[in-house]
């Protein structure tokens, strides 16, 4: 699909009506938006109910499968400086060497050498809200099994025919150089061979995306790539290493993205509002009561269809969710709970919401279950991430 070429083919960024800000530098625009944000209620009072997006149809289903049903830790990320999609191979080489060097502190490694850890960068085509959103991309850290020479020889073979060279030293170098290039084929081969043990185990996955990030895109120049939402799965120490590399290389800044109770209730309402063919999980809320010595957790599970029925009863504006509706929805839950247990939930803190669409924890953990509403969920998370970096 040509959506991959979209960023290059739409030079509309310059032709957009910007007369409103004429003469103002991006920094001042920034400040303006910060002022606007701080002076009003932090979030706009109405949002669209997530819909299945057209662009999302283009996403490689195998890659989407990688993103679903996994717990992701959320980070917000400031725009990447001088990031280029054409250099992904080079980045994976550098990051690979960086990780290995960090893992074996003090021991130098050659960039491009074959390690038992392998980093693969790949784009997530079509993972965007509008054509203007930059392409999302995925970074995977694989740990190769000890029987690495097997997969290694496959690569060497294909390089041998390419180079026609028999000098072992240049060979090693070339193999390293082309390893990144093969990643697409390798992923395909992975699916062809179900027993992909020798391919290596995915140790860490992270992806960068921007879904409907217009408000951020408007305020930065073309040297920057805005991917404000970063999701990581894997050991935090790995996230730290990889994050540090990105921070050093692209002068960006990662900060953990927590979701407060206010946003969680929005998520609860929006995700309940999604039309589902069949429900895979119950709708569940978790409140935490801060009391010593141990905090008390209150879990409240509702049958998803009941939740939907409740939502339909408070829902007024078609296709949209408003602040009043969210408040009303939550109030109904609270009063129902109070009627039965005589506990005022509004006095406690909402820490987790899980629905059939996705589940979110206040610590900034998310798990997306429904393929159809992936973009919708990410759009809201992008909005939160942008709010945090502005």
């Amino acid at each position, binding site marked *: 699909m040509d959506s991959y070429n979209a960023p290059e083919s739409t030079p509309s960024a310059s032709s957009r009506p910007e007369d409103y800000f004429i003469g103002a530098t991006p920094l001042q625009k920034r400040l303006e938006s910060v002022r606007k944000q701080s*002076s009003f209620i932090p979030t706009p009072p109405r949002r669209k109910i997530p819909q299945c997006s057209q662009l999302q149809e283009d996403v490689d289903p195998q890659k989407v499968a990688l993103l679903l049903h996994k717990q992701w830790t959320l980070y917000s990320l400031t725009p990447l400086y*001088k990031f*280029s999609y054409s250099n992904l191979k080079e980045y994976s080489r*550098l990051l690979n*060497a960086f990780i290995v060097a960090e893992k074996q502190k003090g021991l130098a490694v050659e960039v491009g050498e074959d390690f038992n850890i392998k980093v693969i960068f790949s784009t997530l085509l079509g993972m965007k809200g509008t054509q203007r959103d930059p392409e999302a991309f995925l970074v995977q850290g694989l740990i190769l099994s000890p029987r690495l020479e097997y997969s290694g020889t496959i690569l060497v073979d294909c390089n041998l025919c390419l180079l026609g060279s028999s000098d072992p030293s240049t060979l090693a170098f070339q193999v390293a150089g082309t390893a990144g290039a093969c990643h697409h084929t390798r992923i395909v081969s992975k699916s062809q061979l179900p027993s992909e043990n020798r391919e290596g185990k995915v140790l860490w996955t992270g992806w960068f995306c921007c879904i409907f990030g217009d408000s951020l895109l408007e305020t930065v120049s073309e040297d920057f790539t805005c991917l404000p939402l970063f999701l990581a799965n894997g050991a935090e120490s790995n996230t730290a290493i990889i994050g540090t590399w990105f921070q050093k290389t692209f002068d960006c800044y990662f900060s953990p993205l927590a979701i407060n109770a206010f946003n969680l209730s929005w998520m609860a309402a929006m995700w309940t509002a999604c039309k589902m063919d069949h429900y895979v999980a119950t709708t569940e809320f978790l409140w935490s009561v801060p009391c010593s010595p141990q905090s008390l957790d209150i879990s409240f599970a509702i049958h998803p269809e009941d939740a939907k029925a409740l939502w339909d009863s408070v829902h007024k504006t078609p296709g949209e969710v408003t602040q009043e509706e969210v408040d009303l929805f939550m109030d109904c839950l609270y009063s129902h709970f109070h009627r039965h247990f005589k506990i005022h939930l509004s006095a406690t803190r909402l820490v987790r919401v899980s629905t059939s669409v996705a589940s979110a924890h206040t610590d900034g953990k998310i798990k997306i279950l429904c393929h159809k509403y992936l973009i919708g969920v990410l759009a809201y998370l992008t909005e939160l991430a942008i709010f945090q970096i502005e």
Partner: protein
Amino acid sequence: MSPQKRFKNVQAQNRTSQGSSSFQTTLSAWKVKQDPSNSKNISKHGQNNPVGDYEHADDQAEEDALQMAVGYFEKGPIKASQNKDKTLEKHLKTVENVAWKNGLASEEIDILLNIALSGKFGNAVNTRILKCIIPATVISEDSVVKAVSWLCVGKCSGSTKVLFYRWLVAMFDFIDRKEQINLLYGFFFASLQDDALCPYVCHLLYLLTKKENVKPFRVRKLLDLQAKMGMQPHLQALLSLYKFFAPALISVSLPVRKKIYFKNSENLWKTALLAVKQRNRGPSPEPLKLMLGPANVRPLKRKWNSLSVIPVLNSSSYTKECGKKEMSLSDCLNRSGSFPLEQLQSFPQLLQNIHCLELPSQMGSVLNNSLLLHYINCVRDEPVLLRFYYWLSQTLQEECIWYKVNNYEHGKEFTNFLDTIIRAECFLQEGFYSCEAFLYKSLPLWDGLCCRSQFLQLVSWIPFSSFSEVKPLLFDHLAQLFFTSTIYFKCSVLQSLKELLQNWLLWLSMDIHMKPVTNSPLETTLGGSMNSVSKLIHYVGWLSTTAMRLESNSTFLLHFILDFYEKVCDIYINYNLPLVVLFPPGIFYSALLSLDTSILNQLCFIMHRYRKNLTAAKKNELVQKTKSEFNFSSKTYQEFNHYLTSMVGCLWTSKPFGKGIYVDPEILEKTGVAEYKNSLNVVHHPSFLSYAVSFLLQESPEERTVNVSSIRGKKWSWYLDYLFSQGLQGLKLFIRSSVHHVPRAEGINCNNQY
């Protein structure tokens, strides 16, 4: 130079040409011959000559002995001689003594190096010679190159080689040029193979390596060595230097704790090195050494973002290298001409290279580098500013201890970080946008205690902008804290608002005179800017009036308020901005009726300055009638006159409640004060009464009862002189300017003609 000296130099020159040499004078002569461009050395020796004259006899003897010794070594060991050892020992002693005392001239070093490495004498002698090769000032590059060539012949033993490398590392800074030596890079690199030499060669290479020396094959060679020898600190250091120059080829992360990477080669020559450094004090520039920083990843949970909050300065070669394949010709040219940050040491360097500066890979690192702060300050390059903006806003937000719950254990770190930012802002005399945004976000959550002084200083550096826009975001929140906190908090808020006003005024006055593109998108006209400033002043007026009520007219608070107005009253003259705003009555009358003399004195001073400013404004208006936009309304003048009348009425004419403050006579009678009329003049005013009494006591110390009312007529002016002599300068200025003194109290002429 005196004729005698010139003669001596000629002599010296002759001697050098004959092949023998002496130190001190000959060195300068040699220098003249060899390197006429090197004027610094010549002049230096010129200065040294007078001293040399006094010690001439001693030196001469030493010199001759040294000549003989060097000559002896040059000829080589004489086989037949019976007392060979004795002579050798004597000459060695001579050389050692001179070397450790004064150092050796570079041509003597040349000869001795030659001897030590050629293996003419035994190992022990070679060692002793090498140990005492200490330069008087510099070592010529040629001798080092020659010496290295001896290493290839294989005539010297392993231990001599090691010693030579140690010597080379220790003396590296004193070698006059290094280009030739750098050409031998490959030779040195090959010597890494030798296990005994490896640590020292590593150190030498560490000092010698330039970017162009880093080649893929060398990287691989080093990695092979690493594989063979394991994690050696000297190898680590060299590798990390390679990584620094070629991050696309190699990656290494140094352990956090490691501090020492090289065996100390300098030990042998420690004192001598110090002496040479002292001799060279002037011209030798500090050698450039790259810092080996530990890696920046912190594997700690939660806070991996920061080892230290501010990133380490590093050129952005990383990102550039990444796009290697598509690098255009212009990029290549740019790169060769770009100036690496690590070499940036001085302001002139910055000015010369400002067009081709390699920017740091992480913009946040400029915060610790004053030179780059200059750069940030004048650069109009949006990406640079945006990168800095993003980094600073995110770091502030992340580090802020009250913005996120349970972040309190890092309080100290955050305070230090804020201090660094404030230092940078003071240095640049300019606030950062990120800090402003941070204040908007965090002020509503601030408890008013945490990092108070830092936080309020940040407030004072808010860049100039429209007051009505900033007010709901900032000042309204600040006001809540202000009214509910202690008097000390109130005072510090007023203090920081005073600084804010000053910063805004400075910025505006610069702006008016330089007329650049106005930085704020909203306040494009001067009128708008003035409006904003006057709103700020009125706001502070409102704050202070209310605070005075809350703190029941505390003198302490009033001091801070008047400090603020001391800035306000002088805007027209000091900053050349068309603005005069008077203080609110609540402040004026509190100050006028204060029991504290210094308050009253300050009030007098402020009134005097207001008068000056208004007079100047009036004069200007008369001169240029065109600039009508900024004419002060007659209301300002009326207000001022009203205050002035009250003040003169109280302090001078003893008609306090007539014109200025109007109090119903009936009420005054009810108070029961008999002579209320003069009860507020300079004599009877409660804050002056003590002065009046001590004045009278000074006049007639034996008097039992004093009658302050007796101060009138001539005594009145004596009394005034007494007051002025007590340091009441404000009062003096006020009375001199506003009261045309006629010895009788009634003869007052107030200038009310504005």
